[in-house]
């Protein structure tokens, strides 16, 4: 019989990575009630932008490029984690501006628009970077492997899971403990009242969408060294993100986090003990939960009502 502990640890790590992927998606669904099908493509674009800054051809003027490339890899990586998601945020602005006409209408319009945006972004990636695969170089401090319980583990996965936990905490703090978070929640809860109080609702929605985009791009850079970089990598992200949101309960912050960890554990354990069921297990989990709790694990309760 296999020792269970390594697989529980692996499931937990995987769950945190899923939570990181789903975070931006969850914010936009929960706070704007918009399903952003371009989430996966923005995730992929983040990975490519990160690659561009970390790799040998940064999109910078020639003299700045020389200086940039002299920086140690760790610095370039750390700066890319900030700069690349912000640049993808600009793409997020464009998508949100296009989405404005769909607000308050049938959700299908928003779905179709973001689906189209996903296609455009993915094809744009193919045009700029081609169809080949890339590997994202990471600093030595977080690469390589270590021994735990006589098994070799990837250092990077634990770094990625730790980063995911930190980002989850920061996002929660921002939404729950800042006045800006309160305005965002209020805007989602009763937009007319927020507008009546003199708050610019369009700007508020824009900021939420761009923040969700930045989180998607950040997740793309973090996941890139594990999954590899290829134009259609976004599809691999958007499916579990969507599943996690439904499983956790649409709009529920901690519901999404708990659902991510459950999905991670389901995949991790089934891969070890019944490998052919590993991907199916997350769908079975969804069916089982939705059968008994149609609104997902945390039901209707969300950050908006906290």
């Amino acid at each position, binding site marked *: 019989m296999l020792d269970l502990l390594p697989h529980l640890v692996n499931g937990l790590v*995987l769950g945190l990575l899923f939570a990181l992927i789903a975070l931006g998606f969850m914010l936009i669904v929960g706070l704007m009630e918009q399903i952003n099908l371009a989430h996966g493509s923005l995730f992929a674009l983040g990975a490519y932008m990160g690659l561009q800054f970390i790799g040998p051809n940064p999109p910078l003027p020639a003299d700045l490029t020389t200086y940039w490339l002299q920086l140690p890899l760790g610095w370039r990586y750390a700066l890319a984690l900030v700069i690349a998601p912000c640049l993808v945020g600009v793409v997020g602005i464009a998508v949100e501006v296009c989405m404005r006409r769909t607000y308050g209408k049938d959700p299908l319009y928003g779905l179709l628009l973001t689906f189209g945006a996903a296609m455009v972004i993915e094809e744009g990636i193919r045009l700029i970077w081609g169809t080949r*695969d890339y590997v994202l170089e990471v600093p030595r401090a977080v690469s390589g492997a270590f021994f735990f319980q006589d098994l070799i583990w990837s250092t990077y996965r634990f770094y990625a899971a730790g980063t995911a936990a930190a980002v989850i905490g920061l996002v929660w703090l921002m939404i729950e403990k800042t006045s800006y978070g309160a305005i965002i929640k209020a805007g989602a809860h009763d937009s007319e009242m927020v507008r009546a109080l003199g708050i610019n609702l369009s700007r508020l929605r824009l900021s939420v969408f761009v923040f969700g985009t930045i989180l998607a791009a950040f997740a793309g850079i973090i996941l890139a060294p594990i999954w590899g970089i290829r134009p259609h990598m976004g599809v691999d992200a958007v499916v579990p993100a969507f599943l996690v949101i439904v499983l956790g309960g649409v709009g529920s912050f901690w519901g999404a986090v708990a659902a991510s960890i459950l999905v991670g554990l389901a995949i991790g354990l089934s891969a070890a003990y019944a490998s*052919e069921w*590993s991907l199916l297990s997350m769908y079975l989990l969804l069916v089982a939960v939705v059968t008994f709790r149609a609104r997902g694990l945390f039901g209707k309760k969300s950050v908006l009502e906290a």
Partner: protein
Amino acid sequence: MAKDWITRRRFVTDSLMTATLAGAGTFYGPWQHNAAYAQAKPIKLGLTNDASGQFGNSGQDDHRAIRMAIDEVNAKGGVLGRKVIWVTADTESNPATGTRVAERFITREDCSILIGALHSGVANAITQVANKYGTIYLNSNSSAPSEAAENCSRIKFVWDGNGTNFTKAAVKNAVQAIGKNWLLLTNDYVYGHSTAAATKGQVEAAGGRIIDNMLVPQNTRDFTAYLLKVQQVKPDVVATAMGGDDNKALREQIAQLRLDEGKPAWINNQQDWPDVWGAPQTLFGVFGTTWYHKLSLPGVAEFVKKWQDANKDGPIPVPGNVSYNGYMATRELFRAIERADSTNNVKIIQELEKLKVPALARMQHHDAYMNPDTHQMQQTVYLARKNRKPTDNTDHFEILSWAEPKAVEDDVAPTKCKLIPYDKVPTVDS
């Protein structure tokens, strides 16, 4: 008004002159190829290549080489004096899409021959449709052993080496030299299953045993659970049968863990060149291929140059096994049509069944031949590993050995492959 009329005599004279000039121009002008094309309708091919999904990258590499072979034959005046034209559609690495595309190409686009496959499920789906209409189908690059065994067909020809060929080239020596306890890591679809079955047979025949077969669902991106289990089970050898993007993600994660250094040993069935390009540092273990652009054989350098000229803006700078198979399949099809002196499907099939290609023309170490009982091209199989001393930035393989086709032929396939008689094949003529 009367002077504007055309008299009957003048009308007949002018018509005759026009017809004479047009006829002479057609046959004696500088456009002799077009003159030939004009005599008969073009031969239309349906290129069933993946452009997205798990095999999108490789599918397009296949596509580029097929196009190159078509351009080449058209530049020489076409086949039987007829221009070759083509249509293509993305089969999306998805069998259901493969079925739809094949049906459309045959019934609406009037394609008389289909070419292209990476995903064995897609290849099998296309075969079912092609069977129904008697349309010849060239499976250029799907390497599931089942393609030339239980899923074989009179109308289908398989051009890639398959899981059994690569397994036979590697397993016997590995059981003796490395160890008897083998673990299989198998992509959960037809290629993985049939390759794993072949590996199991070879391992057991060589005195080894399979201690576990882990099935990996398609589109798996995180392999940590599997790699932890590999470490817990402690096999001597892990034999993988993974395809496309799944294979790339697996390679990246094994490289991160450095699991390829020391035990267990890794035997990877085949590494397609488009999957290697872009991430060569993740290559590990011993793997198979049917061709490499650095083989020291006559014609290789010329072929590479020709391919580069045809694909100047392509994503990959040199051809690999996928392009090679796509090109060879298409080229041999045209030659078979010329030999048959007909576009009748059965006559072409009979020509392809007799196909023998000298090593020189194949740019391989041994002569190749089509097995008439399975319709699989029997060819040289190479074993390789990551090149530690590359001569340039495309030199990623170190070729370790090569096996002649007879030595790696699938002996069981003919017993599983049931080809229907020629008179049961619906007639197709381009």
